[in-house]
């Protein structure tokens, strides 16, 4: 369907801008209030680096992802009680086909301690996790806090599954999201975090423009993120698909690896590998940033849930 804003887009282009066509709702998924992430360029200056032709991994590669199904199940008084099933799995790819390598599931009930106490043993086999806060009860805010508790439960489960996997395999493990979720991950030299969300940006000003206008098949200079020097993460942005006529974030991911002597030299090589992982293209809304292997794990977990 033709857009009523075609002429406006043309004028924007004439004015030196870049037209975008991504649906507004998809752009809005970036949380409001996005702030800068503390980052230090370790491969100065911050610039665009061509990475060359994509190269497919031939060795075994594994993918890690987690899902959560969360529902408000009721109230004790006015205190909300939510329940969730969180799942995490690692699927390993051998000879271009994936299979399950490790997985775990956890069922939790989250609420104010008083609400959980009122429920007693009736919540079994669900694990009861209290909302810890000094703030007075507020049904809306408690829902948000409960959601955050479930998020942490899922992150914890992902870390646990990754640990199980790592105990038996030493191949590259690609996680959906930041490595900062687990201290183990920030020191795992064979782990890569692929961050699709850009609610938190590492730069501002001119550097931000450099960061966000990265051409396709290019990476940015490597920068360090994280507050603890002993658990620093090296990261760079990688553009998987051209963003022209889409939006600034189209095909843009942040790649994270454990900081180390080899992280700078391996940035190009890993980027070429990851560039190859952009296909097959999934049919998900954020297909431009979603690696098929990650998508495969998510689908597996959703199928298990069903």
């Amino acid at each position, binding site marked *: 369907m033709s857009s009523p804003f075609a002429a406006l887009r043309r004028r924007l282009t004439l004015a030196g801008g870049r037209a975008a066509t991504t649906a507004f709702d998809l752009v809005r998924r970036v949380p409001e209030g996005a702030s800068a992430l503390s980052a230090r360029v370790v491969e100065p200056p911050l610039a665009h680096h061509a990475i060359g032709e994509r190269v*497919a991994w031939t060795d075994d590669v594994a993918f890690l992802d987690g899902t959560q199904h969360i529902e408000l199940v009721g109230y004790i008084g006015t205190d909300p009680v939510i329940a969730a099933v969180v799942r995490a799995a690692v699927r390993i*790819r051998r000879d*271009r086909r994936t299979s399950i390598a490790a997985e775990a599931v956890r069922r939790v009930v989250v609420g104010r301690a008083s609400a959980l106490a009122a429920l007693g043993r009736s919540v079994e086999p669900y694990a009861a996790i209290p909302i810890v806060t000094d703030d007075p009860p507020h049904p809306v805010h408690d829902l948000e806090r409960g959601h955050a508790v479930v998020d942490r439960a899922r992150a914890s489960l992902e870390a646990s599954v990754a640990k199980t996997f790592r105990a038996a395999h030493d191949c590259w493990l690609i996680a959906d999201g930041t490595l900062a979720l687990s201290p183990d991950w920030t020191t795992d030299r064979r782990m890569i975090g692929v961050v699709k969300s850009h609610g938190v940006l590492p730069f501002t000003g001119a550097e931000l423009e450099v960061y966000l206008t990265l051409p396709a098949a290019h990476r940015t200079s490597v920068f360090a993120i994280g507050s603890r020097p002993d658990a620093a993460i090296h990261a760079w942005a990688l553009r998987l698909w051209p963003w022209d006529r889409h939006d600034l974030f189209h095909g843009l991911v942040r790649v994270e690896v454990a900081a180390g002597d080899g992280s700078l030299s391996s940035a190009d090589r890993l980027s070429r590998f990851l560039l190859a*992982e952009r296909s*097959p*293209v*999934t*049919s998900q809304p954020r297909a431009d940033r979603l690696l098929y292997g990650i998508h495969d794990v998510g*689908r597996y977990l959703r199928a298990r849930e069903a």
Partner: protein
Amino acid sequence: MTMIPLGQVVATELRPSTPHQFHFWTARDAILGIGTIVRVEGDGRVVFGVVTEGFAYADLARPLDAVIGADGDPARAADEPTLRTEIRLWSAAVLRQLPEEPLQPVPFGGVAAASDRDVRIALRMDAYVTDESSTGIPVGVYAAGGLSAPVLLDADFLLGPEAAHLNITGVSGLATKTSAVTFLLTSIFQTFPVSKGTVAAVCFNVKGPDLCFLDQPAPLGEVDLGLWQRLGLHPVPFADMTVFAPFKADGVNLNTLRTNDAIVDRVEPLVWGLREVLDYAEVVLNRDDVDAKADALIDFLAERVVGKRYEAKELRDAPFEVLSFADLDVFFRAIFDHLETGRGGEVWRTHHVATIRKIRNRLGNIATRSKGLVTDDGAANDLPWGAFRDRSLMVVDVAGVDPLAQDLVFARVISKLREHLERRDLGVDHVVVFVDELNNYAPADGPDTYVKKMLLDLSERGRYLGLVLFSAQQFRSQVMRRVVGNAGTTVFGRMDADELAMPGYATLSPAVKAKLAALPKGELLLRHPHFTQPVFVRFPRPAALSGREGVERFPPSPDLPFGDAVVRRLKALDPGVAADQVRAAIDGRPDDEVRRALSATARRRPDDVLAFFRGCLRSTIAAAPVGPRRGITRLARDDDDPFAPY
């Protein structure tokens, strides 16, 4: 018994399980395909099904995603580091449920490949193949995933009386139809229960040498021998076979491709006289001819004239003895002479001259177009009516004769079979009649010919008599529906795609149709009253030579000159007959006379062939030497006679 699952039943709102159909998924590399029989267990039920459709798809939502993923370059599609997740989804039609009542949707259980025993139960063969008794006729093996399970037809539903007849459809040129029927006849002869009576087969050979060498052994490979063994059959050709073939127009050379001296002993001439033809005269009359007046004249000839002394003083003083077409023509000529002289007007004994001329033309036409089949001497050589032997095969070779004569042969042979079976005096209890190219004889459209009506009658009522029709054609859709519809057992070989597009095949799934369109030689899709769904079977190569092989191994002898042909035929009766003596005996005699003698000798099969043959020739008066003409004795000269002329 622990079931090794091959797949799992799945049902969605769009693809639910029903009592007659279900769907299941398998691993990508599971060994099964269209036609595989599977077993489902669940909820205390066992369900057997046959795979009718297969689906494979990946998680690709739009083809455009594949293009984008490969950067628009098909060669780069192989570079994708991860193969898309894909599914093998199968649809199966239910063959049988246990318990059978109440009939319920197929449970969501595990799916396993059927075992040998499962196949027997799934196809309900357990009803007629038991340790105590069996009416099973092996037709082939169901082969899938390393399993090779015999499939048997129920004799009661193949040869009657419950159901009967078999129809086979398949493209020409692969010899599948002929091979299948040949193999099945062998199987019937070897396994038809003695308690069910005796059986023989009459096959009409309508093309080339197709069925002419079924008594000659064919070399078989290990695979075929294994199939024969698996089916419990002996790979042997037909031991008791006779080929019946008319003569060519010369009346001495047989009109068949089985004329090699080494095997000609099993070939019998098929010769009919006026009586045999007149009984089936309506076969050669078209719709316009069939009227009450023509019928009346034919009846008059059959009942009052042919084979009798018929007196008609107005035609001639001497009575007529009409035994042959030549005699009949003399009779007709006498009528026309009588009418043309004005003594009888336009009507002779209530028959109008136009009707008489029409019947004369039609009957004369038979004699002309069927020369070789129809003899002029009135003596017939026919199938052994009343003396059919159990497990004997008679091949009636009409491949080289005129279509009109073919119709005549079909009509007479089948009618005679029916007559004898009705009287129970044929010699056997069941006769299988094999007719190839059925679309020629019982076409879906076109006029109602006698042959068509006769085939319809055979298909509808034959099973009560033990008269069973095995028929074959390339295009089932072009055959009269009631004829093929009455076939209890239906077989499909490789099919033409255009034919499969006809409405009659709507019950077959697209995958089954696709398999049929590329079916290898030796495989068939089989439908039988006991089988809820059609199943694919593989049958071994027949143990008898095919027509092509037979002609290569036994090349037909070239047509011989009249005299040599007579010698050959007499030598076939007695190899000790001296050619010179035969030639001396027939030298200077009319061909018709020699043919009559030869025919009589062949019928009688005397101990002393040559003597009998000579005896059949008309006796001749030895020629006396003629000396020089003597003239009148010259008178002695008498000079004293004054009146002497000189």
